[in-house]
């Protein structure tokens, strides 16, 4: 019997994981310049996941995306993940699906559970099925049992566990790997109760996750420690590698991370020693050789007679299809807006007018009002 994670043949691999496609949901929950490192974290994971094969159509990337073009960025259009500006993780082919103020708890839960309005385009949806392995990566500022979204709202660990349960009920995943890099990150996976979930966190309850290194040129911290060492680990992974999850659990021990990373595998049905890292981070396809084909040449003879009957060729007339219903937009009636009470300015103006009126015409009228 195989000891360790070496899988002998491809047929065996076909059955060992049970998934046929991979998805990734990468979320950075903070905004503002001093949270540069969270954006760099998410973008670095995005780069690794793309390098290992998951295409953009299968990645849902949620970022505030206010770093690259921030007024305080000394190198515009770049986001660096290593000091001395070695590695630009922004580049020119980043596809951010939810940016700016669209990164909210509501949108995140809608993406996970699939309850999006019908007008949502394909790239903003998580179209996974029961044979998809999903990687979910969250980073930002968190606390004991909650994660802060864009400094204005929070998601609690109960809501997250309920969202995963709804995904399980609808069989929207085969296996799910949840990685969180925030302070007290382990509290976010305490409440999970759905099967086939594996979780990793950068720090335990009561501990803070620390950042790695500041860059003097940019002026902020560039990465968090846990993600930095995670990415160093992922650099050695290529699409055909056979490294398994037990090695991933050893990433960033306390000596390097200062906080104690934790993981949770009790809900996972397979043994983590047999789960490949590329099962979640990469997108290794199963293939089968096509053995048969259909003989269609007999059909051609029937069809060849038809064009002869037509006679001359008819040139197809092409016309430009209406991209935007311009006529509808121009002639649109203005929308009925809800009535709002008058503003403070209007109220102040009317008070002034009333006072002046009563001043000129005599004070005796005032007592009828007050």
């Amino acid at each position, binding site marked *: 019997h195989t000891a360790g994670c070496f899988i002998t043949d*491809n047929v065996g691999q*076909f*059955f060992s994981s*049970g998934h*046929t*496609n991979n998805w990734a949901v990468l979320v950075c929950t903070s905004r503002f310049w001093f949270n540069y490192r969270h954006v760099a974290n998410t973008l670095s994971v995005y780069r690794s996941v793309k390098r290992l*094969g*998951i*295409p*953009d*159509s299968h990645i849902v990337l949620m970022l505030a995306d206010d770093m690259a073009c921030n007024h305080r960025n000394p190198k515009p259009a770049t986001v660096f993940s290593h000091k001395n500006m070695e590695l630009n993780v922004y580049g020119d082919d980043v596809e951010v699906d939810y940016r700016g103020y669209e990164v909210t*708890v*509501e949108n995140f*839960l*809608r993406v996970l*559970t*699939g*309850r*999006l*309005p019908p007008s949502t*385009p*394909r*790239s903003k*949806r998580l*179209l996974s*099925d*029961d*044979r998809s392995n999903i990687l979910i990566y969250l980073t930002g500022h968190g606390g004991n049992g909650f994660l802060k979204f864009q400094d204005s709202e929070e998601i*609690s660990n*109960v*809501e997250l566990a*309920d969202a995963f349960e*709804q995904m399980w*009920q*609808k*069989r929207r995943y085969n296996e799910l790997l949840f990685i969180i890099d925030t302070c007290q990150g382990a509290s976010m996976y305490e409440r999970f109760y759905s099967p086939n979930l594996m979780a990793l966190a950068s720090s335990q309850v009561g501990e803070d996750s620390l950042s790695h290194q500041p860059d003097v040129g940019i002026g902020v911290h560039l990465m968090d420690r846990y993600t930095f060492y995670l990415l160093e680990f992922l650099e050695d992974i290529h*699409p*055909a590698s056979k490294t398994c999850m037990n090695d991933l659990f050893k990433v960033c021990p306390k000596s390097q991370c200062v906080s104690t990373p934790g993981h949770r595998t009790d809900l996972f049905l397979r043994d983590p020693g047999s789960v490949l890292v590329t099962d979640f981070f990469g*997108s*290794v*396809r*199963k*293939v*089968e*050789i*096509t*053995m*048969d*084909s*259909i*003989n*269609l*040449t*007999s*059909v*051609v003879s*029937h*069809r060849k007679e038809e064009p002869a009957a037509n006679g001359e060729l008819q040139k197809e007339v092409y016309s430009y299809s209406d991209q935007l219903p311009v006529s509808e937009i121009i002639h649109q009636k203005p929308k009925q807006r809800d009535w709002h009470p008058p503003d403070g300015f209007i109220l102040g103006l009317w008070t002034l007018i009333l006072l002046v009126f009563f001043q000129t015409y005599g004070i005796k009228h005032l007592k009828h009002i007050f």
Partner: protein
Amino acid sequence: MGRWSHSQLSMDEGHVTHGGTVTLSNALCSHSQTEMATTEVERRRGQLAALSIAAVVIIVGVPLWWRTTETYRAWLPVSQIKEFATLQLLLSVDVEVVFSRGTVSPEQQKKVPMTQTQDEEHRVDENTALKYRYEIRYRTATIMEEDALKQPTASDADLSLHALSENPCGSLVVYVIPESSSLLSEDVDVYIGQKRTAILRLGAQMRVGRTLEQLLAHLEPRIKKILHMMSFSHTDITAALSDRVRLAPGNRENIVDSMRAFKSSPGYEITFSLLNPDPKSHRLHWDIESAVETYVQPLLTKLAPIANFSIDSQTLYYAMLGVNPRFDISRSSYTLNAESLAHVINPVEARLGSNAASSNPVLNFLLYVPDALHSPLHILDRKKQAVHSNAFHSPRWGGIMVYNVNDVYGPEAVLPVDININMAKVMGVFLAQLRLLLGVQSSSPPPGFVVASCSSTGLADWELDRLMWSRSVENVATATTTITSLAQLLDQIGNIVINDNIAEQVSSAVTSLQLAVAELEAGNLGFALQYSKEAILASERAFFDPSLLHLLYFPDDQKFAIYIPLFLPMCVPILLSLIKIASDARQKRREKQAKKD
């Protein structure tokens, strides 16, 4: 007021001489009596005020607060939904067994028109039970059918038999021919036609002098095998129930089949892509429009009861495979071996694109023409043999075919060379892959069985029936799980608002489910599939409605933190005054008791 007049009195009395002290005390007594009367009135008024405020708060305030803070929840048919938690499906198949001349003796012929019903029960798990009912009707052949069976070959006989009658979907006809008939060749017992007929030959032991019961018993195992092939087998149905029942890994082939085929969906998108990595050498022409119309559209029209299909096509230039092929000297061609095929798809997929408007699953079919430097390119299977079709497919994704063009032009040709692609060959491979990806199983038939080659549409009627059976069962299973989990979710989380449209969708899903199960019992496969599709559409729409987002989650300590500053300052005086009223009443009662004694 009382105190004020009293102090005024005391001021006046300060001027009175000591002779008037008695009158003063009298005056004081009478004054304090009136004082006591006024305080009594005061107290009563105060008690009445406190009681009425408490009454208003409790009778008017609390119900008002309750009604304004409750969430609107429309009525759901919860009891009917609970019934679906335990699913009992009855699948009923109509089979006709037609005896031709020479198979039954004349006296048996009189007994033959009869009907038999066979039931098979299976229990899948504690919540799901399956029952298969086969209604077998026996009869003798008509004169026209006898003429049709006299044709020289089995396929001709098949064709003329179709001309006679149309069989509704879900039903089967088995023609029994005598052992002496030359319609089937020596080692073949059963011929399965393109539509819903099969021709079965009696075995050698069934000669004259046997009873009808013996004849039927002899036929039964082979009829069963025919049924398993042409309508459904237990493994197919349990695989279709995978949404409801997480089965332990059984047969490897079944797992591969279930992983390969797309899940049931109301629509699919098919994209044909031509990859030309070397436009400088090859100028490729593929007449995709007419090829789709000629070869693919008939198949998709036949599959119309199952799903809608939309087709598009594109050409990609300078699209390379992600893997470098190796030159094999023994074959004098470049080769891709089976292990490296897995890494071919990802770099290409990033460039493929898809229709942004729909969320239907996409089937990608790629035709790759290798560049001039790496031609010809062959795919090797695991045994290092060249694959005849030169194509491979990936489960739930699509297929890739490599089309070599190096034999079309010689070394002295002027580049770029115009090349017309033979669409019949290409479409033959793509259609085979399409069949596999949609779930048309191509398992090898049992020994002694011959299956007619595919018709011009690429799909036999009985294969369509098989697909319809498994799709109906899959839809019913998925819809029941969706509905039950939705009901459970809404029950668990009391804060979710249930709008009227969701309740409507749930009710229509329940109705459609009941109809679908009833039609399956009756054996009307077409209607059953239609109702099951409606059921699954309605249940998915209800489950994934954007308004069902559970955003009203408040932990209990937050609820207290919101309500305490509002209600506590108001409730404390009321409570204290009520307590005071109660204690005063108790004291008075005690005094009255003491006075009585």
